[in-house]
């Protein structure tokens, strides 16, 4: 599964469909262009070459008549006067080695080297096609300048550049423009899907008033989310209703049992049974209470009350509350040294306290007497991390996801008290705070980590100033 959030803006852009289409089209267009121009170039060039060769042949044929070196030299000199050595070379090398014509020829082995004549005109820069024929005991050298071919090369190169570069720039620009235009919409769809995946079934793409494929995909996602949300809320409503409706008779039963208990003689067997019945009714009520509370927390309304809470202080308070009780039952509950200063997270103090209390009680309940339980608050680069670790039996890796399910209990812990909702409540509170709940192996034992996003980090704003914890209210109820 892709993680769209991790991509840089550039790689996002490059990975977008319009850009990929634009780049593909540019590649096709460039290839076709280069091929057709290249073919035309080869064709024209071979024509020009043929023309040059014909010219050279005719030149040589014109001098065939003369077989006396003196005559030939004179004719060459005369004709060469009228010819610009930049376009055409005409030289006769006499048997004595002297050059006549509009350039000088040096023989270097079989290679012919052209030089300017003293006082004569310049040679061309583009090179020549030379042909030499032995004639009248000397050597006749004729040459045609390659300038027409070079000129043609430049023309074709210019054509290539002029036709490809603007196309390339225009198509790429159009691609980027389309990509940017659709990126916002695609990003919106992605963000909505991410939210839905995280369980926020209220996220919607919403109609943007257009009628294209993206809008249709968006509408499809919305319909899916709608159906999912309706199913979930129906399920939630049913369980909330059941919990509510059952709470009232349980409460009545509890009242009647208490009434009955009050009429029984202290210490009698009947009183003992009544006490047990009261305790069972209370337990049933607490299960429903927890279910309702989880439903309410999942509803998310508590988020509106979020303030900055010093998690270190909440942890210290709960360590202090539980330490004596833990010691008396033979456990070692300790608080790791806290980081200096307050450790702010955005949240609800009551629920954060409940989360810590449930984790401590969970550890007390599921480890044997004598176990160590360590509560810690730490800060790393990304998160504020609350940990509760123990050295008890731990939870086998395959079971770890299950224990977060409502009312789920490990088979061997069926006999221990507790209602199987402690960790579900922790999960609900963690979710409400956008925190991640992670169960790890503590080698030995269980290590529960709750990772809260740091306030002020991306997407988490701090509203108002840091809220100081109230001093214990001693005079609230007189």
């Amino acid at each position, binding site marked *: 599964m892709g993680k769209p959030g991790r991509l840089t803006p550039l790689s996002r852009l490059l990975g977008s469909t319009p850009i990929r289409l634009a780049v593909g089209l540019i590649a096709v267009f460039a290839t076709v262009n280069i091929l057709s121009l290249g073919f035309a170039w080869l064709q024209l060039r071979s024509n020009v070459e043929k023309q040059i060769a014909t010219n050279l042949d005719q030149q040589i044929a014109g001098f065939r008549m003369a077989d006396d070196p003196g005559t030939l030299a004179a004719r060459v000199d005369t004709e060469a006067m009228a010819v610009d050595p930049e376009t055409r070379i005409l030289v006769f090398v006499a048997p004595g080695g002297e050059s006549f014509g509009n350039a000088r020829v040096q023989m270097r082995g079989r290679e012919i080297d052209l030089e300017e004549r003293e006082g004569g005109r310049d040679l061309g820069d583009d090179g020549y096609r030379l042909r030499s024929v032995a004639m009248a005991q000397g050597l006749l050298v004729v040459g045609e300048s390659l300038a027409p071919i070079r000129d043609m090369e430049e023309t074709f190169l210019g054509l290539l550049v002029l036709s490809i570069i603007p196309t390339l720039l225009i198509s790429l620009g159009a691609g980027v423009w389309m990509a940017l235009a659709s990126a916002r919409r695609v990003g919106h769809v992605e963000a909505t899907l991410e939210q839905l995946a995280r369980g926020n079934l209220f996220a919607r793409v919403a109609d943007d008033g257009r009628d294209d494929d993206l809008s249709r995909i968006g509408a499809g996602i919305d319909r899916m989310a709608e159906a999912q949300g309706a199913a979930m809320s129906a399920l939630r409503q049913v369980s909330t209703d059941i919990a*509510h409706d059952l*709470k*009232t008779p*349980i*409460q*009545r039963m*509890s*009242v*009647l049992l*208490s*009434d009955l208990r*009050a009429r029984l003689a202290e210490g009698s067997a009947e009183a003992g049974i009544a006490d047990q019945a009261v305790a069972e*009714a*209370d337990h049933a*009520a607490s299960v429903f*209470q927890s279910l*309702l*509370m989880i439903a*309410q*927390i999942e509803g998310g*309304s*508590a988020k509106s*009350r979020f303030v900055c809470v010093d998690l270190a202080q909440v942890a210290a*308070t709960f360590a*202090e*509350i*539980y330490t*004596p*009780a833990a010691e*008396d039952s033979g456990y070692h509950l300790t608080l790791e040294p806290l980081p200096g200063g307050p450790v702010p997270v955005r949240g*609800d103090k*009551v*629920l954060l*306290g*409940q989360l810590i*209390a449930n984790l*401590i*009680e969970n550890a*007390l309940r599921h480890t044997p007497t004598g176990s160590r339980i360590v509560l810690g608050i730490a800060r790393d680069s990304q998160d504020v991390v609350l940990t509760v670790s123990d050295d008890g039996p731990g939870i086998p890796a395959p079971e770890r996801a299950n224990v977060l399910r409502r009312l789920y209990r490990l088979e061997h812990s069926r006999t221990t*008290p*507790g209602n199987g909702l402690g960790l579900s409540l922790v999960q609900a509170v963690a979710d409400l705070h956008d925190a991640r709940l992670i169960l790890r192996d503590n080698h030995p034992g269980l290590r529960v980590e709750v990772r809260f996003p740091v306030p002020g980090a991306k997407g988490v704003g701090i509203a108002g100033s840091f809220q100081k914890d*109230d001093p*214990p*209210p*001693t*005079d*609230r*109820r*007189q």
Partner: protein
Amino acid sequence: MKLLVIEDDRATADYVANGLRQEGHVVDHVVDGREALGQAMSGGYDALVVDRMLPGLDGLSLVKALRAAKVTTPVIFLTTVGGVDDRIEGLQAGGDDYLVKPFAFGELSARIQALARRPAAAIQESVLTAGNLSMDLLRRKVTRAGQEIDLLPREFALLEHLLRRKGRVQTRTMLLEAVWDISFDPQTNVVETHISRLRAKIDKPFDKELIQTVRGAGYRVDG
């Protein structure tokens, strides 16, 4: 005390009213919220016990209406509606306390006592006493029979709370709320342990126990 119980559930209403009468209170009972509004405004009650889900006018609106009409009679909500938000809503509407059903009668009784006996004006005492124990709030010192006793800060706060309410029962949840500012009930017996530590320091070395356990309700310091 003169109390008004506003509750539409017959069984609960009878249980609450009878229990409170047995403790010596005068108790009136009303089922309908609208009817309750008039009676609470004119009846001269010391405290109101209000259910949230009532016919006529719901408990929350009832209390808001009373507060708007400047009726300051203490109100305790007694309700099955027990979420975190609900409790805050109840207190914001003008309730003084919030107790979720099912409840132990001792809890309700202790909380009603606490509500109705708010002092007219807070008299700032600097020394609290019970028997031969005295607590100096300014120097933060506790002595019993001339012997100084060292207390941890939270033990000091716990003892101070009990001494300020001498003779009145304080339940576990009331102590958690007042001393630790925690509004839910942990399943482990945390309060009992803190009380027993406190007892070990202030009662054990002496002949008479100052902190009394009240069965099914909580703790009380007797003078």
